[in-house]
């Protein structure tokens, strides 16, 4: 079953608005709420126009007066254009603004680099007090929107645009807690977002057929980062591979590498978007395949790393431990 995470957000917010009068949805003309949805939300929905800095400032002002604003914008505009308003007005004041950022990663597809957000996670996860989540499917989106009611500070949610596949059965998604989708002692595959998580699951199947057992982590929360689950999974493994719809610097791969370098030094391979702007035309699925954010690349990366290790005669960490 496929469903767009941004639509899951919208559909889960509407009943919450009714139950919680302090919630308000502020839009920047993203079109996510058409006239019918806007009418359903009533005066708890306001389209403030195409002005993202103002959007964040108004949201911060309202939040300082006790409201809980959900702001709709595209990830690229939220985290690049309106970054200072998020930093100073929202994060600095620890205000409970929920930044609902659509078109995350490559989800803008053929709309190109002006609308793609391949830096948003790096930017958001350095802000003190900011919670940063990337739901991998509609169910996780609904869960995170609901859980946000219990969150005191600001929240950044990276959403998609078009329908994306649902994850297979997984532990319930909880903000701040990585989901272990599969367990294996040889390597760890860590990812976030719909296509990368599915690619890692598929890669784990292939690797298992080759005698390599992988733990697959859906690290949907980049901040606060679930160090414990990552370190526990990485300890027996000789390799951690990350995969994300994000430039290779600063995103999930960065968070994993920083964490393991300090807590459990392990070889980390960061797979993600190459260090350049997208110059290929196509939808999200096409771009994901074109830039090789795929199970095949994960398998290749694991095989190459392990083969190199074997050839160089490096002792298996597990032997060292035992």
């Amino acid at each position, binding site marked *: 079953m496929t469903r767009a995470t941004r639509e899951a957000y919208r559909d889960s917010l509407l009943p919450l608005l009714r139950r919680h009068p302090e919630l308000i949805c502020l839009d920047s003309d993203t079109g996510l709420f058409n006239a019918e949805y806007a009418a359903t939300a009533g005066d708890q929905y306001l389209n403030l126009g195409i*002005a993202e800095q103002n959007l964040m400032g108004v949201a911060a002002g309202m939040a300082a007066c006790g409201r809980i604003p959900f702001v709709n914008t595209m990830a690229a505009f939220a985290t690049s254009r309106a970054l200072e308003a998020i930093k100073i007005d929202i994060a600095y*004041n620890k205000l409970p603004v929920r930044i609902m950022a659509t078109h995350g990663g490559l989800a803008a597809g053929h709309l190109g680099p002006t609308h793609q957000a391949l830096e948003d996670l790096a930017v958001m996860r350095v802000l003190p007090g900011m919670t940063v989540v990337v739901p991998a499917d509609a169910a996780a989106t609904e869960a995170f929107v609901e859980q946000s009611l219990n969150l005191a500070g600001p929240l950044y949610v990276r959403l998609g645009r078009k329908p994306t596949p649902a994850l297979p059965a997984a532990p319930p998604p909880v903000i701040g807690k990585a989901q272990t989708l599969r367990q294996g002692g040889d390597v760890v595959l860590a990812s976030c977002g719909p296509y990368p998580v599915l690619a890692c699951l598929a890669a784990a199947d292939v690797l298992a057929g080759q005698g390599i057992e992988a733990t697959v982590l859906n690290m949907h929360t980049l901040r606060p980062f679930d160090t414990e689950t990552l370190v526990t999974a990485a300890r027996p493994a000789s390799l951690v591979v990350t995969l994300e719809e994000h430039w290779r610097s600063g995103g999930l791969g960065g968070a994993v590498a920083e964490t393991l370098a300090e807590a459990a030094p392990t070889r980390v391979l960061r797979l993600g978007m190459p260090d350049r702007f997208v110059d290929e035309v196509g939808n999200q699925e096409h771009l994901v395949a074109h830039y090789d954010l795929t199970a095949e690349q994960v398998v290749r990366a694991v095989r190459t790393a392990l083969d190199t290790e074997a050839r160089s005669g490096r002792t298996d960490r597990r032997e060292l431990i035992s």
Partner: protein
Amino acid sequence: MTVTRIRERETLQAVAARIRSHVVDMCAGPEGGHLGGAFSSADILAALYSSVLMVDPQRPDDPDRDRFLLSKGHAAVGLYATLAEHGFFPVEELAGYGRPGSRLMGHPVRAVPGVELPTGSLGHGLALGCGFALAARYAGRDARTFVLLGDGELQEGSVWEAAIAAASLRLDRLVAVVDRNGLQLTGATEGIAPMEPLADRWRSFGWAVRDVDGHDPDRLADHLNAAPWEPGKPSVLIARTVKGQGLPFLAGRSASHYVTLSPRNHARAARALQAMEATG
């Protein structure tokens, strides 16, 4: 709640003079301060806090209060002096301005009683003010929101994003004041980025506009108390001011923007303020 007429027997001019006097003392500290813009704002701040704002220094978080934002946050020394003079914290605390251990940072911070939100990066206050005004409307409160903008600050595009929103949302409990001192860090605003006719600009954005002398606190208070001036429209008071007003050796000069007063100039400034007070 009542207006904080702490010094009812004092004239607003006297309140403004005390604000300037504190600013001079703070700018004689080790870090100096944004003296020029604090001086041009002093009469506006005196009018707001002594005659206009419904705020209670004993209960600075009262949900029904009027709210004030110093969007030109670099004039923090002026705001701190004003808040202290109106009882939000002890006047003695001003001596710690900019020094380790003090809460009085170079730009307003929330740790200081009476400061609603931190400002300093220009172009943030009016959007925040829209949020305040909107929240008050949703809560069914009559409270008004006042935002003091610098004229150089108007070069920030985000100000105009918020100006559009305020008019579009018909936020007539929102009042902006532009401290039109005509100078920014390196020179005349009109030379760097002309804004005149400024009143027309605001009017064309859907605001009710008044263009007045920014150093007549009684008149300023009258105008501010009368807002909204046109139903359904936010109000902007363009206050014509002089940067560094009151200090002959700095008034009207860009050099007054950021000043660390030497002991000699500190004494000169204090004398000039006394003379100004004596002549009323």
